[in-house]
């Protein structure tokens, strides 16, 4: 007897249950000489594609099943069973397995009815119906089944009748088997040898085949500790409060150990041998033929009929693309036209060779559908390098004008489906998904899923919960975890100053030490499955026989496979990504049309508007796509862009690669004439003149290889990809040297160019991608320049950027755009543009329900507070909050002459008092017209004698109820102290000399710790003080002084020296930082007259 095939193995993709990744398990069994391995994840086929891929690579047979709850007719729990797909049956078993899993998820029980672990399950009768006469799967009845429980507890006949019922239920041959498992637990308990022995003799007495498994959860015994922690996360309870796994035996035991176990269970060698043989027989039956069973690697696109086309798809594509020429190159001259025709011809030849015509038609069809829905959209990524995409209306960037290459996107050297990503308005994304389902039918479409994995904080949180730490303690530790993976937690303790308190605790407290250990263990394990933020899978009508699906949060079915599984499974994934900036811009365009009656086509504005570039060059880029971050603002100051291509370059430069590769400085030096650009060889001048000799783009590499070696661009892209792999790079090196020598380049040139290419692999960026990003950057800058009010209204409504909304409000103040207070007669669910400014939206008020907002809008306008109270029926809390925020102030003003008295003006205090009167009424009077209530019919009399809240009180209410400071900037509350200390305003920094000592204060709006060339950590903090944004840099020494303040406090005071970073750029080299509120407390101790100001 040699080898043993494990048929019951959960991978780490069994969320919060399995510990080991499928690839690792497959490698282990292959190394030990086995030739097959099964995966059976809990409740799904989550890890199966990775498992099949790993097995194919290792040359062993993949087997796939699922570990699923099987239910009684009444929905109660019957068994947890492994259901294995048979193989080499032209996909019959695989399709049935997919269906079984999908049905189990679709009929998911309402919570409460069953234990959480069994909510996803399938009734035995449903299962029997799916398997029918033809079968296709084998169900293993194991220790965690009615039979398994009965052999331990019940009378002997009961177990026999239960097993007989299973046999009766299934008609297909080989549908059931009894799973013999011993985890060597205490005799008489589940998973004991005793239970296994009784299962064996019961099965033998009824002639049901038996197989041996080890119900595996992890690779090695040591991993059992990790499994304990995962169990805790699954139960949402600390260790010790639930029944844990009985011991550490559920590991992937080697064949010899399994054979010994078989003998221990069977008591004699011959029965053991027989048990092992039937196990291998079932394994043989289940060996998958991935190509013929799972359609592995076969591209599947919607059928012609589903796309609504007749005839040859390539001819249709040819016609559509050529029709696009008339539209997009209407005014082109003959030379350009011939270039367009030539390029399109080349692209279409490649597409036809690869057989991807249907794919392009599909994407074009979706793009057209999105346009028909009047939703802004734009292709991103390397797809923007395709003229075909441009002519089909998929991409909005002209690849010829911007010098983008098709070969970077697609070539005959590769045969995988290319990625075309479409950015759309985030607010309409779900509408698009539904429309896609409707258009192609639910048998051809599913959403894509993604597995999120444990990272630093999440791993620490679940570890802390497992150990029973207090929530507060966990929060405190989480706050100081920055920029390291959980795997290096212990290492980080010694080096990061903000973790020094924790490091001390770890030395003294055993539990804290365990926390570090198990946090490291959880790192990178899959955590849970969720809807991918943008992926839609489009297939032919067999899609649901290829992938299992489960309901997504959206209600639409979602595949259990993730994005890495798409290529191997030949599935076509379309990324429809919601981009808030697109929504914000669409909103601005609608407001411009509503308020000014101007129809604006943002995609056709001139792309060389000098005013727009002037705005950008001031570095006041808050709210502008991609270039609003502190680092981008600093770079903008140095770069001073003047044309569209500059934006493409700047976006591509501000990436970890170019920063590490020190590409920014030489580029800027060349551009500003500080240094002479070095092109190495005159042949490279046309390629690199746009970037002053610096190789930035993938397209540069392609062209350099093309010019210097004479290879095709397609071949060049293959070589570029090879550069990422050191071994493959060797072959490229040889080719490059050989060809360039042949073509007469000097050794000096060859070696210099090669060293750039060699170092380039991790740095470069696809220019098409940069250009696609630059478009919304330019468009948003254009809107900010010409329609700031409407643009800001769009930003407020859709919140696209990295900064909190209150910072954008400060930007509005700076631009002289007024943010108008809430008004129940004027505010809506969006930020509406009015002649005087932008009206705050009702949705900002915390605790106000969607229904209340909808009723307010529906019932507007109101004649007084009582009218509002009667028709909107707000909760007491909502009514009071609206009053505190001044939403009823417009009912105030001058009192009528008959009630003026001593108090001619209504104060907000009077209004709040009126609201409290209404809130004191026990039950709301009925509001039907025929039952007038006297108190509400007369003209409302507002109370008198209540004082107007102070400015500080108003701001404080705004901050606590909306997280916004509208009336004035929150920093104003501290103004007396700041003035006394000589704190500088952000907008004054630019006028100061280099290296001036300064103090600045403000609200923290961004904290970044980008990767640095030196490997040392640098912290960037941006503060907003109402006059603008200041950016401070903390290096090691400064961090050591104040790291506890840096990550924990919102209002900061920072000391440091100014540092010029460009014509318009100043940042601060920080020396120290303090908590502004703490300073205020100390300051006011000596000056009690200021005490009430900064109550907020």
């Amino acid at each position, binding site marked *: 007897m040699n080898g043993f095939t494990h048929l019951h193995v959960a991978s780490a993709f069994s969320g919060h249950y399995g510990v080991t990744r499928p690839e690792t398990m497959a490698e282990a069994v292959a190394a030990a000489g086995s030739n097959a391995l099964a995966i059976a994840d809990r409740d799904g086929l989550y890890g199966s594609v990775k498992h099949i891929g790993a097995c194919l690579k290792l040359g062993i047979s993949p087997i796939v099943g699922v570990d699923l709850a099987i239910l009684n007719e009444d929905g109660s729990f019957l068994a947890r069973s492994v259901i294995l797909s048979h193989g080499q049956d032209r996909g019959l078993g695989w399709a049935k397995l997919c269906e079984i899993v999908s049905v189990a998820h679709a009929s998911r029980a309402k919570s409460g009815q069953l234990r959480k672990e069994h909510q996803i399950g399938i009734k035995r009768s449903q299962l029997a119906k799916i398997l029918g006469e033809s079968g296709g799967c084998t169900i293993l009845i194991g220790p965690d089944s009615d039979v398994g429980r009965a052999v331990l507890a019940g009378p002997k006949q009961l177990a026999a009748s239960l097993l007989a019922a299973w046999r009766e239920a299934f008609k297909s041959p080989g549908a059931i088997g009894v799973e013999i498992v011993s985890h*060597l637990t205490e005799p008489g308990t589940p998973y004991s040898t005793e239970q296994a022995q009784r299962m064996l003799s019961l099965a033998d007495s009824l002639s049901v085949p038996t197989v041996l498994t080890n119900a595996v959860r992890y690779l090695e*015994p*040591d991993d059992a*500790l990790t499994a304990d922690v995962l169990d805790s996360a699954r139960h949402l309870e600390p260790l*010790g409060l639930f029944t844990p796994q*009985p*011991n*550490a035996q559920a590991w992937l035991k080697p064949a010899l150990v399994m054979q010994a176990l078989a003998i221990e269970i069977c008591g004699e060698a011959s029965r053991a041998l027989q048990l092992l043989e039937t196990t291998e027989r079932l394994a043989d039956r289940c060996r998958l033929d991935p190509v013929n069973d799972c359609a592995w690697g076969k591209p599947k696109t919607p059928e012609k009929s589903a796309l609504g086309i007749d005839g040859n798809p390539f001819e249709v594509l040819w016609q559509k693309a050529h029709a696009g020429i008339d539209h997009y190159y209407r005014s082109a001259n003959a030379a350009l036209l011939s270039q367009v025709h030539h390029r399109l011809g080349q692209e279409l030849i490649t597409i036809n060779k690869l057989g991807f015509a249907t794919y392009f038609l599909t994407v074009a069809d979706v793009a057209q559908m999105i346009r028909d829905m009047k939703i802004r959209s734009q292709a991103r990524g390397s797809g923007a390098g395709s003229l075909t995409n441009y002519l089909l209306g998929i991409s909005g960037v002209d690849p010829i004008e911007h010098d983008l290459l098709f070969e970077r996107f697609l070539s005959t050297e590769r045969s995988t489906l290319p990625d075309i990503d479409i950015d759309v308005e985030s607010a309409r994304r779900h509408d698009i998904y539904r429309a896609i389902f409707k258009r192609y039918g639910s048998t051809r479409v599913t959403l894509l899923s993604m597995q999120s994995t444990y990272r630093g904080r999440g791993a620490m949180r679940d570890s802390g919960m497992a150990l029973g730490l207090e929530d507060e303690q966990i929060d405190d530790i989480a706050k100081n975890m920055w920029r390291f993976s959980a795997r290096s937690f212990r290492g980080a303790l010694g080096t990061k100053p903000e973790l020094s308190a924790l490091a001390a605790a770890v030395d003294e407290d055993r539990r804290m030490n365990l926390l570090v*250990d198990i946090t490291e263990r959880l790192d990178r394990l899959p955590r849970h499955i969720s809807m991918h933020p943008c992926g839609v899978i489009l297939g032919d009508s067999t899609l649901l026989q290829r992938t299992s699906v489960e309901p997504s949060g959206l209600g639409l079915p979602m595949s259990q496979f993730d994005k890495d599984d798409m290529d191997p499974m030949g599935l076509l994934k379309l990324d429809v990504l919601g981009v808030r900036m697109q929504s914000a811009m669409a909103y601005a365009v609608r407001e411009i049309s509503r308020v000014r009656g101007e129809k604006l086509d943002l995609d056709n504005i001139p792309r060389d508007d000098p005013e727009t570039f002037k705005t950008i060059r001031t570095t006041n880029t808050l709210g502008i796509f991609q270039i609003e971050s502190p680092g981008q603002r600093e770079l903008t100051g140095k770069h001073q862009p003047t044309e569209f291509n500059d934006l493409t370059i700047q976006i591509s430069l501000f990436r970890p690669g170019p920063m590490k590769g020190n590409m920014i400085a030489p580029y800027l030096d060349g551009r500003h004439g500080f240094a002479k650009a070095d092109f190495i060889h005159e042949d490279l001048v046309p390629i690199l003149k746009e970037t002053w000799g610096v190789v930035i783009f993938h397209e540069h590499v392609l062209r350099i290889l093309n010019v210097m070696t004479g290879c095709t661009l397609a071949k060049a892209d293959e070589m570029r990809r090879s550069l990422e792999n050191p071994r493959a790079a060797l072959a490229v090196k040889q080719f490059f040297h050989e060809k360039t020598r042949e073509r007469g380049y000097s050794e000096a040139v060859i070696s210099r160019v090669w060293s750039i290419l060699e170092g380039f692999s991790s740095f470069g960026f696809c220019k098409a991608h940069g250009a696609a990003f630059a478009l919304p950057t330019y468009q948003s800058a254009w809107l900010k320049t010409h329609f700031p009010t409407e643009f800001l209204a769009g930003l407020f409504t859709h919140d696209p950027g990295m900064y909190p909304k209150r910072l954008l409000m400060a930007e509005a103040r700076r631009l002289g755009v007024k943010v108008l207070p809430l008004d129940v007669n004027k505010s809506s669910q969006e930020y509406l543009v009015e002649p005087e400014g932008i009206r705050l939206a009702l949705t900002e008020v915390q605790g106000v329900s969607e229904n209340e907002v909808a009723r307010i809008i529906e019932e507007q306008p109101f004649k007084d507070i009582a009218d509002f109270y009667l028709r909107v029926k707000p909760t007491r809390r909502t009514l009071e909050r609206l009053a505190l925020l001044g939403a009823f102030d417009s009912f105030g003003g001058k009192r009528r002459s008959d009630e003026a008295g001593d108090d001619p003006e209504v104060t907000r205090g009077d209004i709040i008092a009126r609201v409290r009167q209404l809130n004191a009424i026990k039950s709301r009077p009925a509001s039907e017209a025929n039952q007038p209530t006297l108190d509400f019919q007369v003209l409302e009399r507002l109370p008198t004698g209540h004082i107007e809240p102070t400015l500080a009180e108003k701001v404080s209410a705004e901050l606590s109820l909306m997280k916004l400071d509208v009336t004035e900037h929150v920093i104003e509350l501290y103004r007396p102290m700041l003035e006394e200390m000589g704190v500088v305003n952000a907008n004054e920094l630019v006028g100061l000399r280099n290296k001036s000592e300064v103090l600045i204060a403000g609200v923290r709006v961004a904290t970044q710790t980008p990767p640095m060339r030196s490997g040392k950590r640098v912290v960037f903090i941006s503060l907003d003080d109402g006059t603008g944004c200041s950016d401070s840099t903390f290096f090691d020494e400064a961090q050591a002084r104040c790291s506890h303040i840096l990550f924990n406090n919102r209002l900061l005071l920072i000391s440091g020296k100014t540092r010029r970073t460009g014509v318009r750029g100043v940042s601060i080299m920080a020396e120290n930082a303090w908590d502004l509120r703490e300073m205020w407390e100390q300051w006011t101790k000596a000056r009690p007259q200021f005490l009430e100001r900064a109550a907020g």
Partner: protein
Amino acid sequence: MRSMDENVSVSINRTGEPVGFLWRNSTYRVQTKPIRWFARRDWWLEAATVRRGVGAGVLEVEMWRMVASKAEAPEQKTQFEILHTAPSADGSKAIWRLVKVYD
């Protein structure tokens, strides 16, 4: 049944099964084939470290259930449970502790 926690000295056969032990100055001989199983420990209450690779010994402990009798009174059979900690890499010796006596 009595629970206890006392050191015993155990003699084993070639396959590692206990065949007899010395407890409170009496020698016991194992009468039937002993049953081995694995129990677990609440490591979160006692372990100092659970770093990766520490091994399952932190979590798991080997148990033996056996029927034995004193050498001088073979007819008087009693069931015992003995906990076994294997010798570890850092040099500590094997430990056998009697944890249950079913009398």
